[in-house]
């Protein structure tokens, strides 16, 4: 196992905010701010190596040990149930997993509910908890148009501001679970790089507390 702490960061706006937290926690890597197409950056002095990956892949990198720690959305953790430790709720990228449908929709319990979603496991678990018979329609994008075109009755998707729903004449019917970014760790890395991982967790928790109190 490499002596550097390998950190998988989610590409995009959230990733930049997350990196800033790592930097403030004492794990800077100035080269990451250079404007180029590189995906891997390391700072041997701080003992850290960062890499940008697709947000939905962060948990895979961490579970398989290519990254020691990473930051992934709770939606991904619930959907793929990776075998990782979930050490801290970073409170970033807050949104919610919700059931949405056309405003006029009324559920008829006598019929199987058709649910379009990218998050099949989350939707199945939610409706199994309600004892509701459903037909999952797995889609990879543009979920909002499924009820408009009659493909499904409802959708289960991430809702941030609700603007996309509104523009497509949909509304939130139920909130399933709040979502935010979580600091996750590989189980083996936690044993062998415990000091660095604990330091990051504690520093980040302290930063969040400071921010909440400010």
């Amino acid at each position, binding site marked *: 196992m490499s002596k550097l702490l390998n950190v998988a960061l989610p590409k995009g706006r959230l990733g930049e905010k997350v990196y800033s937290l790592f930097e403030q926690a004492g794990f800077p890597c100035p080269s990451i701010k250079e404007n180029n197409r590189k995906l891997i950056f390391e700072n041997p002095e701080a003992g850290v190596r960062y890499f940008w990956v697709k947000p939905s892949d962060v948990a895979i990198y961490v579970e398989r040990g290519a990254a020691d720690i990473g930051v992934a959305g709770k939606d991904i953790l619930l959907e793929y149930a990776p075998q990782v430790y*979930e*050490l801290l709720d970073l409170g970033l990228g807050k949104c919610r997993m919700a059931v949405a449908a056309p405003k006029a929709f009324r559920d008829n319990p006598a019929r199987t509910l058709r649910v379009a979603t990218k998050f099949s496991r989350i939707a199945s678990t939610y409706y199994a908890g309600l004892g509701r018979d459903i037909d999952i329609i797995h889609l990879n994008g543009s979920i909002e148009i499924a009820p408009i075109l009659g493909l499904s009755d409802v959708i289960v998707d991430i809702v941030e501001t609700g603007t996309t729903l509104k523009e497509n004449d949909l509304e939130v019917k139920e909130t399933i679970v709040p979502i935010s970014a979580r600091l996750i760790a590989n*189980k083996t890395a936690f044993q062998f790089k415990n000091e660095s991982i604990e330091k990051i967790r504690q520093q980040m928790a302290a930063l969040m507390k400071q921010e909440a109190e400010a």
Partner: protein
Amino acid sequence: MNTQPKDQQVLSALRQVYSQYGYQPYKMSKFEEYDLYVQNKDFLISDSVITFTDTNGKLMALKPDVTLSIIKNSKEQPGCVQKVYYTENVYRVSAAAHQYKEILQAGLECMGDIDEVQLHEVLVLAAASLDSIHSDWVLDVSHLGVPEALLAGLSPAVSADLLACLGEKNPHELRRRCEAAGVATETADKLCLLISTYGHPDKVLPLLKEALADTAAVEAIRQLETLLTPFAGTAVADRLRVDFSVVSDSRYYNGLVFKGFVNGVPDSVLSGGQYDKLMRRMGRSRGAVGFAVYLDELERLEQADPGYDVDTLLLYQPGCDLAGLKKAADALRQEGTVSVQQQVPAELRCRRMLRYINGEVTPCE
């Protein structure tokens, strides 16, 4: 040069260690009646089982697990323990690959009147197993009696939810769920303490003894201390961690539970514990403790590439003296591995290349 795959090297070492402690080899068939697994599906790592109908109409399964078969065939003798070890292939869905895999597994089971002597010995063997795999390892030890004492009185569903949070080292979710289920803040605080007190027994156990002094968890902490104290001053002591994220299924396990990690393999390579509850479910009155070592991931451990596949490539010409060639090759085999070939194979890397010609072995240009 040791060309044996890592899992085979480890297997030989494990057999030797287990035999030294009086464990007897246990050999079994690849098949088992499917019924055995239906009764105990949750005990299996993956509940997907490969089944087929035998010629007599019975539904059979390719073994996804070894422990259930060993318990089924165990004999109870009051005051004694039966000690067996196994090295078997099992067939189950790999959590990482999401498809069926043949997985080489080794392990041991100690069944009968289990006491602290037997529990400690199994921990010693777990530590020795990890040491056989890699020089850099950690054994996480826990006792289900500690979280169970704190969760007493809660519904099974809430307890299962909170144990899952403990398993994820997830204090934020644990607090949310405690709040949603109306669990007392004091209980939530104590459960969060279990998440944060990971580390060496000398550091963790005194802290927990004090913090949980007024709970029923004290007895379980005392037993952990009894089991871990004899390691003091040994090389094993530094590699032990008390870690309450080891939360094996409490419907089967009770008391001591543990998981082993080696540096370089992303998930635990060893898992075990005391499973008296499983014994009861299978109609046995005595207790049991054991563990499994998962050998399928060991190929990930770095083995330095020596830069060649064989020590010597010995080339010969068609029609050469066969007896002489054999004698020359056998002599070279005293020094290492030898591949005898007419031509140089494209993919074969050798440390040195020799030629057998006119009864003589000479270096190739």
